[in-house]
């Protein structure tokens, strides 16, 4: 099963097994990774599952819909490789993907 590495704002790493087909958000929630709120349950409308994808991995995370792009423009601590964790779907290709959780999610 592919795994993802979530890095906390303080630099702590959690390695988490996520089945192919699950989103990063679902995997994080299942394993109780802190800091990914996912208030809308994965619909790319709340922006509270924002993560900063490690540079090398970003290109493999798939395309962004316009709704996600618009939300990422307003999330705190946005970087070029930001994604909504609910829109990144796990696969063997993403085995070992590393993402950093921002210290703040949209207060919403």
């Amino acid at each position, binding site marked *: 099963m592919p795994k993802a590495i979530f890095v906390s704002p303080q630099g702590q790493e959690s390695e988490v097994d996520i089945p192919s087909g699950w989103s990063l958000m*679902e995997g994080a929630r299942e*394993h*109780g990774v802190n800091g990914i709120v996912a*208030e809308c*349950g994965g619909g790319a*409308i709340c922006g509270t599952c924002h993560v900063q994808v490690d540079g090398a991995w970003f290109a493999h995370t798939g395309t962004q819909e316009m709704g996600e792009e618009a939300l990422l423009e307003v999330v705190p601590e946005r970087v070029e490789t930001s994604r909504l964790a609910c829109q990144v779907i796990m696969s063997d290709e993403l085995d070992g993907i590393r993402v950093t959780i921002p210290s703040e999610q*949209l207060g*919403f």
Partner: protein
Amino acid sequence: MNTTDILIIGAGHAGVECALALRNNGFSGAITLLSAEQELPYERPPLSKALLAGSTDTERIRLRAQSVFDEQRVDLVLGCSIVRLDVANNEALAADGQRWRYRHCVLATGAHARMLPQPTGVDVFAIRTLADVAGLRARLAAGMRLLVVGGGYLGLEAAHTAAKLGAQVTVLEQGAAIMPGRVSLHAAGYFDALHREYGVQLVTDCRIERWSHDEQGWQAQDANGAVHQGDLVLVAVGATPDMALAQDAGIACANGILVDQECRTSAAGVFAIGDCAAALRPECGGHVRVESVNNALVQAKLVAALLTGKPVAAARPPSFWSEQCGKRLQMAGLLLPHSEILDKVVSTARGWVVERYQDGVLRVVEAVDSPVEFMQAVKRIGADANP
């Protein structure tokens, strides 16, 4: 007799969030989380959508893996139904005779599907629990005729899911429009058109006077004399808060377990959060019960903050969403009762926002395909129309 520091009764969105938020805030005492259901706690919104459709499964909609509760030292007890609360002695009694003595109790008992005197029995369903969905899913198939009683959020979501599965769906709504009294005319009209595009039959102003059942299935005769036929019936007429435990304990209840702005009930040391709680909202002039994941999470975190001496997050308008026909309706804010509403529809790049004003003040915002504009408008709730 079991003893615990915090006894949380109910392991839905609110109960689970409260337990984990307490730990997250550094609470080091004992936390007991009781669920009357046998399954690990799960997300509720997918029940009428992806789970009913079969595009997700029970494992994937779990709120957390068992290991998370273990690691966080939250004593999660499944299949445990509390039948009596003794608030004078801080004790809770379960159906199997187990007792818990607690220092604080959090009621997160949620709500149950309201049923009707008729129709009942074979091929009549509700959607509130995992078991409900398993039953309905097993019977839904292409060509099956489904009658949905109630054109509110849940009924409409399920109607769409069933239609996509190939069922012939008819929604029977007694109001003049779908989601009556809940959404603007614009939003109702928008979703009405979408449902019809998907082949769902919407019958409004429909009051069923007689239900009958035979080998052809169910027949619902309405006040206009029309007869609606179905193989299956889904009753989706709202949810009733689970407050019997509180009522029997002498805790003040009305349209829910009554709580103040800190989610405290009338019994010392007892809180209520989520779908079961009717919280005092001064901006509305009374107690309002909100059924949404956002409200459950906010109230859960509020109580966790209070119990651990952490700062409480500033109050924000409650928010809510519904997904029908592949579109997400976002809503935030509460309407004042008995006050005229002025709706302003604003087109956005990909969708629309409706700003709902009362007495010149923005009270509620609705949006589809406009998450950023929605957020910006919600920040203005409570502000004047023309600042």
